């Protein structure tokens, strides 16, 4: 089967600083891939290059058959970028719900505004997805009236409502209080169980071990190692992976700080 995401020889520069160095990777349909690594390793930048929130400097990114070449002018590829964004759903660390819209309106916004869907069909889709993340009972609340974990679940529903081919998660639990992390991870696990293709940047090692089919370790803009969770967590070969796991095991209490 053709991969949903295929990245080849991706480079990304911020000014003179190279944050991604010749990255090549794939995500296959129904696969859950977790990217782990230290802060500043380039994990988030890699994820954000996929839907062009960051412009790749060099290299090709293909999502569900739509290919964009890095380094070209954005204007020339605007249509392609739009196509890719329609095929990807993004969940942010800071939720980024629209504060002037209710929970339901947040989830309906994409189908109605972007897909030009009529309100009745959009409502149906929105309610179905709020059901999926267990937030249907809060559909008329505004974002400032719900907890961080609930916000993130709504944000997941908002992305799902666009029926993307792949979900991108950018450290979805890093901005949450510890007691709220579980509910978000539970939703993500149930999505993985349903066969949603997911690419997840995370610091949650337990989640990576339980839910991922494949784990990618990044170090200073490069892929240090990748493999199945059991292979990677139990028999890490790369020194950076070993160091990362060592730090994780020795300091489970000390949360990684961004």
């Amino acid at each position, binding site marked *: 089967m053709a991969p949903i995401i295929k990245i080849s020889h991706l480079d990304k520069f911020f000014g003179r600083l190279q944050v991604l160095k010749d990255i090549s990777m794939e995500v296959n349909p129904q696969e859950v891939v977790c990217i782990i690594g230290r802060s500043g390793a380039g994990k988030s930048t890699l994820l954000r290059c996929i*839907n062009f*929130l960051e412009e790749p400097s060099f290299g090709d990114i293909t999502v569900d058959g739509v290919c964009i070449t890095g380094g070209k002018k954005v204007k020339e590829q605007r249509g392609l970028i*739009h196509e890719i*964004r*329609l095929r*990807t*759903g*993004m969940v*942010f660390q*800071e939720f*980024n*719900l*629209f*504060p*002037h819209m209710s929970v339901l309106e947040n989830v309906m*916004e*994409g189908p109605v*505004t*972007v*897909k030009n869907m009529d309100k009745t069909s959009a409502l149906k889709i929105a309610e179905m997805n709020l059901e999926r993340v267990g937030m249907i009972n809060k559909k008329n609340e*505004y*974002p*400032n009236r719900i907890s961080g974990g609930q916000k993130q679940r709504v*944000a997941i529903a*908002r*992305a799902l409502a*666009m029926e993307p081919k792949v979900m991108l998660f950018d450290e979805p639990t890093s901005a949450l209080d510890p007691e709220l992390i579980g509910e978000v991870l539970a939703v993500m696990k149930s999505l993985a169980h349903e066969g949603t293709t997911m690419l997840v940047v995370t610091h949650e090692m337990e989640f990576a071990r339980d839910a991922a089919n494949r784990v990618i370790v990044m170090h200073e803009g490069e892929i240090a190692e990748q493999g199945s969770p059991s292979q990677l967590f139990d028999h890490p070969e790369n020194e950076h992976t070993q160091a990362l796991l060592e730090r994780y095991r020795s300091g489970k209490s000390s949360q990684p700080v961004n």
Partner: protein
Amino acid sequence: MEAALRRFHDLFNQGDTMSNSSTTAPAPKSQADLIYDMQMHLKRRFSIGVAISWFVMLAVLVFLFSSTKISLGSYTFKTIHIDTAFIRENLPFIASGIWVTIGISALSILFATILALLAALGRLSRFPPIYALCTFYVSLIRGTPLYLQIFFFFLALPQVGIILPGLWAGVLALGLNYGAYMSEIFRAGLSSVSKGQREAALAIGMTQRQMMQRVVIPQALRFAIPPTGNEFIAMLKDSALVSATGFVHELMWRATKVGRAQFHNLEALITAAVFYWIMTLVFSYFQSRLETRMSRGER
């Protein structure tokens, strides 16, 4: 009111004998209730104090203009005399300018809001001429006096053959001027919308235009509406400058007209001042209510 008094009665009774549960109240008050009552009491005492002081100052002001005779020993003097008959006679003429003042202010603020929003959006443009146009406009308007701008539209334009009806020239001048200042408010509003909001909009596939229309501008407006109310109140008073041209018969024009003609400027101006003040008070009240309502929801 009675209920509030009874609560205070209870408060002070309980304050003395904390362990005794009140015989009249159904349940004894908790510590939190007592502290809350105390805070409310202090708050209320302050506002009552302020209200009384305001009343005293107003009374002094009225007294100063009441032509009262005062005798201090052998020395007698009178406070300022006002011809109330003149005021009564000309009140309808002056008061009919209120609606012109409100009308010209409302039209001007509407025009200014549109200009300000365009100018603020234009400053986000990456296209040099548009960015330049917006900064040029703001710089030109802020660099010249409002009084001059008003005269420019009334007196200078006719020289080159452009004759605008009085009201429209006034709206144009005031609107252009306030638009330049208010563009800063809107700019702050636009930049108050976080980058994450824009990214979230783009990530679900919105175009730049949809992102602005659906996500950024609604939030920016929510930020900008209370300060716009403030600008409207300021405009109510600045609209008086338009009277100088003689073409718009608003409050100030009417006051100076009857005042000069009958040499009763004191009475005429005081009348106009009272009207301006009342208008400002009324709109400030609505403005502060709007502000509390807008600040309630999280941005």
